[in-house]
């Protein structure tokens, strides 16, 4: 199954999201792919809504098994999340564990009014009761395959697919 180009999916997502936006919304991308998607979405939506980013390394549930993620980026939420309607954005939704970690982290910044989830690709395989509100594409893919978003040197986004990295 061929995946559409990321830009196409971002257009699709933007059309779904646009009618639901209100002035009390804010966008939050999950490092690293989710932040790229968020930046692209913010441009498409032509909004001046506040944007933030999360690195969920300190909230992961597999720390005791695999230790700290080798590359940690600073989280940046420069606005007050209290009472806001947050749109959480990631590139690929799989087990749901990343989203769980991101929600826990968001609550440590305050109590948002709502959190909705937008993903570029939903590849199934959930291990937690998490479901996206907006999804660019539903991908059927075997468990031993991976799909991830990459940023090329020219700044364009692409997908990489292949056998699972162990």
């Amino acid at each position: 199954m061929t995946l559409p180009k990321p830009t196409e999916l971002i257009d699709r997502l933007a059309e779904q999201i646009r009618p639901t936006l209100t002035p009390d919304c804010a966008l939050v991308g999950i490092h690293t792919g989710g932040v790229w998607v968020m930046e692209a979405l913010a441009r498409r939506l032509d909004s001046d809504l506040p944007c933030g980013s999360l690195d969920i390394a300190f909230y992961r549930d597999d720390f005791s098994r695999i230790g700290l993620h080798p590359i940690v980026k600073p989280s940046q939420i420069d606005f007050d999340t209290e009472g806001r309607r947050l749109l959480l954005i990631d590139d690929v939704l799989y087990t749901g564990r990343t989203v769980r970690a991101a929600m826990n982290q968001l609550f440590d910044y305050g109590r948002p009014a709502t959190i909705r989830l937008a993903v570029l690709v939903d590849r199934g395989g959930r291990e937690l009761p998490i479901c996206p509100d907006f999804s660019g594409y539903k991908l059927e893919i075997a468990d031993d395959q991976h799909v991830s978003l990459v940023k090329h040197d020219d700044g364009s986004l692409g997908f990489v697919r292949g056998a699972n990295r162990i």
Partner: protein
Amino acid sequence: MSANLQLNDDGSLRHLLSLDGLPARILTQILDTAAGFLSVSEQEVKKVPLLRGKAIFNLFFEPSTRTRTTFEIAAKRLSADVVNLNIGASSQSKGETLLDTVANLSAMHADMFIVRHSSAGAAHLIARNVADHIRVMNAGDGRHAHPTQGLLDMFTIRHYKGGFHNLRIAIVGDILHSRVARSQINALTTLGCPELRVVAPKTLLPHDVEGMGVHVYHRLEEGIKDVDVVMMLRLQNERMQGALLPSPQEYYKYWGLTPEKLRLAKPDAIVMHPGPMNRGVEIDSDVADGRQSVILPQVTFGIAVRMAVMSILAGN
């Protein structure tokens, strides 16, 4: 003292005892991770759940409220359980007793020991004798090392200067009695600082200083000329034995960093100090509180750096 004691077989960090022998890859990993932890203090809940259920023991055989507090805050921000033990050095004169203390605490299911001791090598001794799963951090041992202070200094320099490769850095003051200076020299050399100067009176320099790969200056005015970073050291009054110096007033006259002397450094030079400061001895108040001072940010960065080391050790 073997550097290998600090590393696992796969080369990852196991204990933090000294910056001596740690490769640039590990120093950089710690600094990068610490940058991630800086934002935790901006959260409404200034805490992450990373070390939930871990027991961290602050073993202070030498009193140091400030250092102990920074480790305690770091551990609490990681959601670890922290126990503070201030153990008088006098009752711990034998190595065997030290290890007995540690064995007892290990039986209480400790996961990490933060060790401060007046004898060089105390943290190494503990690291050699603890169970496999226990991690040890050196919070200062005698004149030997104070690796987290060295790391927070590296973090501060990188934060304000972007890196190390074009910098001229001066370490000023009581090098002889300073465990901080040794840690700083080790780390700056490893991270590629091209010109490292030590600036001190002859009586406050160790005999082997020339062998450390640094340039030695005996006048403050020459030593800080055109530098990017001035790293002040505390005049270690309580360590001073015999008459190495005439008086604090005399020291200030020749070695105190005043605004006039600081003008010899580059205009955008930063001034650092590990604290606590002796105002009017090694540093003038106008410098300590001035535009170029990054002394208080150093304290803030120290928490993030200690969080980074704790979580890397606990995860490896």
